[in-house]
């Protein structure tokens, strides 16, 4: 049993990693038609679980939170969402590709209305009570931000088939949340299920209010996050810090954190960088004995050697990774400089602009500046032999 669990875990991690790196590999998949069945499975997994529209990307909350208070409404809303998404994405993939972006947005609303209006007429005749219960939230499905987002991100840049696949998987993710929310809220809020009374214990009618909806999706998002922790802890950590509902942080720090976390998962980086990073960390601990200049020069030599090796092996991926590696390598050294200067009782406050200037300067300039500022102190080493 244990071996099987391990195998499943590795497969899941691979799946999730490949899904996250999808934008890079999309071009390869477009060319090979053999991977189409596999890509549908991954697309479904990605949109329903990894990038669930409501629970991870916080899109289209209005109907889920406000009106999805019974299983019937949930089913009706999800069917309408399916049709609007498929219709809008197919139209935008086939016809709207050459339209200017500002005009496309209006046409999404029009296409959404084209599906919602007939469905409202149908509901008036077939399920009039449900129609009254849904109220004004039903026509708001026409301007569901999920449609605009998916059309702009996927449908306009891909083929009709891929747009269809994306529409189906996104709607499945949305429908899954709708149905589970409707089920929970109806059961706990009114004690019924599909309008049949299940139990008569006084129920928490507050769950049928919008705040009950927020509580239910809050707990569902927490359960999903717990599941992510099990299959891919890095992704869960990433979501905790950089999700659509976290305050946007300055770009410098974000890219560094991101790259530091995913260095091991990047498949195209040559393996030599990992041992070099270990060298840097050991150098930090030995910093007190080696004077600052020599250690920086050694690092520079190491950096140039590794760059030459990398150039020889991987010419295509170097363009961005040079700066990445420089940033990763420079940061600990700049940290050391700051630590040394604060030890010398200097109050230093670097603004983000100053940090960027520091990063753009070469190592030699930084060392020259620090030597100019610090007064020449009597060396501690000279005092020791006197004793």
């Amino acid at each position, binding site marked *: 049993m244990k071996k099987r669990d391990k195998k499943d875990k590795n497969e899941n991690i691979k799946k999730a990693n490949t899904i996250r790196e999808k934008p890079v590999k999309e071009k390869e998949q477009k060319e090979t038609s053999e991977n189409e069945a596999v890509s549908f499975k991954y697309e479904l997994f990605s949109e329903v679980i990894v990038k669930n529209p409501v629970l991870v990307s916080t899109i289209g909350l209005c109907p889920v939170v406000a009106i999805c208070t019974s299983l019937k409404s949930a089913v009706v809303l999800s069917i309408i969402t399916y049709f609007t998404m498929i219709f809008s994405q197919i139209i935008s993939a086939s016809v709207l590709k050459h339209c200017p972006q500002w005009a496309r947005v209006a046409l999404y609303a029009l296409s959404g209305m084209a599906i919602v209006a007939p469905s409202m007429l149908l509901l008036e005749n077939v399920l009039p009570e449900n129609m009254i219960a849904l109220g004004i939230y039903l026509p708001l499905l026409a301007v569901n931000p999920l449609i605009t987002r998916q059309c702009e991100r996927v449908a306009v840049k891909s083929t009709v088939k891929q747009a269809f696949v994306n529409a189906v998987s996104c709607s499945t993710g949305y429908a899954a949340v709708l149905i589970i929310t409707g089920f929970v809220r109806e059961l706990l809020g009114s004690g019924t299920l599909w309008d049949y009374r299940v139990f008569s214990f*006084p129920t*928490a*009618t*507050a*769950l049928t*209010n919008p705040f009950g909806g927020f*509580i239910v999706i*809050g707990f569902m998002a*927490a359960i999903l996050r717990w599941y992510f922790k099990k299959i891919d802890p890095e992704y869960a950590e990433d979501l905790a810090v950089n999700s659509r509902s976290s305050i946007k942080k300055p770009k410098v720090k974000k890219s560094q954190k991101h790259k530091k976390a995913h260095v091991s998962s990047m498949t195209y980086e040559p393996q030599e960088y990992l041992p070099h990073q270990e060298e840097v960390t050991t150098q930090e601990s030995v910093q007190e004995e080696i004077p600052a200049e020599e250690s920086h020069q050694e690092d520079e030599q190491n950096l140039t050697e590794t760059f030459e090796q990398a150039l020889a092996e991987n010419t295509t991926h170097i363009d961005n990774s040079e700066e990445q590696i420089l940033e990763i390598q420079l940061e600990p050294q700049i940290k050391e400089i700051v630590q040394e200067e604060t030890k010398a009782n200097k109050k230093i406050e670097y603004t983000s602009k100053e940090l960027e200037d520091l990063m753009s300067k070469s190592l030699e300039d930084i060392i020259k500046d620090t030597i100019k500022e610090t007064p020449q102190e009597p060396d501690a080493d000279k005092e020791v032999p006197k004793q």
Partner: protein
Amino acid sequence: MKELNKQKVKEENKQVRAYMTDMLVMLSATMIIAVFHYGFRCLLMVATSIIAAVLCESCVDLAKKRTPQRIGDLSAVFTGAAIALMLPASAPMWLAPIGSIFAIAVAKLPFGNAKTSLFVPAAAGFAFLSLSYRELVFTYPSVNFDMSGIVTGEEGFISGISVANMLSQKTSIGTGIINVIDLFIGRVAGPVGTSCIFVMFGLFLYMLIRRSSEWITSASFLAACSILAVIFPRVLTGRSISLVMELSSGMLFFAAIFFISDPVTSPKDQLSRVLYGFAGGLLTMIFRYFGAFEEGVCFVIIIMNALSTYFDTLGEKLNNYINSKDTKSKPQKSKKNKKAKDTPKTEGGYIL
């Protein structure tokens, strides 16, 4: 690292426990009055509520394998007791535990522990109950009704009119059924632990002696309510009667002592606390005058907790403005004044 964490948790538990023991001592006074008026059913309600809250918190403690457990800081006990004491004596036995479970599981645990919570859990739990089970929470048994017959709460009872209800209907006391002395003793239909004004004033003074930095928030809250009650009376029998009725109705005094003064969710600076309490009082009276519920103080507590950082910044700016004015007018004495006016900030929210 683990040992450091354990030490830190132990210290935090100690701080919170010190505050909570004070609060529980105060709550026990209200419990005694409740038992005096309504019998031992109140004790049973409080006990079930506390057990539910403690079980909920200890489940999470065990699941997360926290050592030492956070249950030792007595905040769950306080939450359970406070929720039960705001309910009517005729409430069913399952009502208070549901409120406690909501308070702990939804309003406290997703935000951490007692020292890092963003809302007062008891206020959130009671707000949930009042929205879900409005009739059960706001119908009180009449004072003359013998409560010994009621065990589970399913039995019928004669409902009395609470003072808050009277205010919302604009009928006044003093016309025969209830007079001011009844209000002071607590012999009036209302929540179990909040009706006796005599006890409430005693707790107010106790708080002034024991927790003076938190007392300031309560005092300004009550000041704001009193000012509005006097300026805009809802009853026609005079402003003093209006003041007495407003302060003795519902859970206003109770919330002023126990909820608005919670040091974790209120601002840290003294001046900010004064403004915070005052704004809370104003908002409570607005909820009372124009809102749908006869008592909306728990909703106000939630909104004020969300706005506490705004009051922090406001207090800071005012302090800087006052200090800069001092330095401009009296340059030599300014240093002494600054030290005297350096308002004692309560770091971490609690002072031992």
